[in-house]
């Protein structure tokens, strides 16, 4: 198991935004990344909700994993436990938002059910277990990954808005072009590699 007690939480934070970006280097959360990136505004809204859900669920999963799952040695059940926690906390976030932040709920509400099956959310919790993070590392890892995801989807949507007006080769419209744009973005992000290493 990769043990990482010495990495500063802040290094993890910046690394998960830039060098270990959830989409561009770990390919997590691709489904909604491809399908909800036609408009900058919507994409950015989804990015915000993902960031929020990510922080909340990783923290809950961390606490449950550390204080319930490990002491009872139920590690083999962790997939089921994580997915239930994610589904439940998305529901609770939705209820709380509806009650206290109705404006935000109207804006982000449509995305919340989608997020339950976003693999980035589950992926973060699994990475946290594999890499043995402590509390602060987990917190900043979740937050940084969310911001990284947001950055990637917002950038992609902004590029796609511009590109949509041009002539695109036949057969490449839609997903094909999206992959090429994302590939170029990933290529650009490789330029940052070496600044931080957490993988």
């Amino acid at each position, binding site marked *: 198991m990769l043990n990482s007690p010495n990495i500063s939480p802040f290094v993890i934070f910046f690394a998960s935004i830039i060098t270990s970006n959830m989409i561009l280097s770990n390919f997590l959360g*691709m489904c909604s990344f491809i399908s909800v990136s036609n408009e900058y505004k919507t994409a950015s809204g989804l990015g915000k909700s993902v960031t929020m859900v990510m922080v909340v669920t990783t923290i809950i999963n961390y606490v449950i994993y550390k204080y319930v799952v490990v002491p009872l040695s139920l590690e083999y059940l962790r*997939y089921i436990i994580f997915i239930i926690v994610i589904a439940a906390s998305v529901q609770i976030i939705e209820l709380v938002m509806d009650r206290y932040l109705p404006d935000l709920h109207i804006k982000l509400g449509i995305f919340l059910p989608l997020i339950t099956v976003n693999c980035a959310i589950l992926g973060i919790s699994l*990475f946290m277990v594999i890499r043995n993070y402590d509390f602060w590392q987990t917190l900043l890892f979740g937050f940084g990954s969310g911001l990284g995801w947001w950055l990637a989807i917002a950038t992609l949507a902004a590029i796609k808005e511009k590109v949509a007006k041009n002539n695109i080769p*036949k057969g490449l419209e839609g997903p094909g*072009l999206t992959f090429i744009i994302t590939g170029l973005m990933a290529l650009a992000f490789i330029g940052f590699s070496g600044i931080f290493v957490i993988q």
Partner: protein
Amino acid sequence: MKKELQTVFYRNLWKENPVIRQILGICSALAVTNLAVNSLVMGLGLMFVTALSSFTISLLRNYIPQRIRMIVQTLIIAAYVIVVDIFLKANLPEISKALGPYVGLIITNCIIMGRAEAFAQKNPPVLSLFDGLFAGLGYTIILLGVALIRELLGFGSVFGYSLNMVNFTPWTIMVMPPGAFFMIAIFIWISSNMMSKRTEKAKLKKQEAK
């Protein structure tokens, strides 16, 4: 039954191939395809989970209440994923380590949920089993295709066996993330071009018949 099987086979492998036509299950298709062995194991795991979860969901389709069916389906899928995970850890520890979190992420793979919602909900168990199996097969074939090219160009090897090519400089970019995006894009491009040509031909035939 035989005819139904044929349509299911054709649809899942080509016409509505999960990866290149429906753009589902992309996360793992991008992440594990830098080595052909990893892709093969991942594909087999996904076939197992999709087939059996479609079968189980179809068996239980009349007993699962509509409102909570998503979470029930997710739990069924998660149970099979745990089986795959434990099996890999016990028998192929190195590949299990290389695949890392992506085995667990089969749970959120949209292909399985998609087959469950679109097919297993309304069809008998055995047909659903084959539908899931063929959807998994469609995924595996694309993964292997992508992985073979990426591994060949990126490491100069096939299934881990080095080809010892002289004067060959590995294209490192192919085994890095951008290579994955470009390869999938090329696959989608080729397939949609072939599809549109085929529909054009069909149109022409119809016009001639008229």
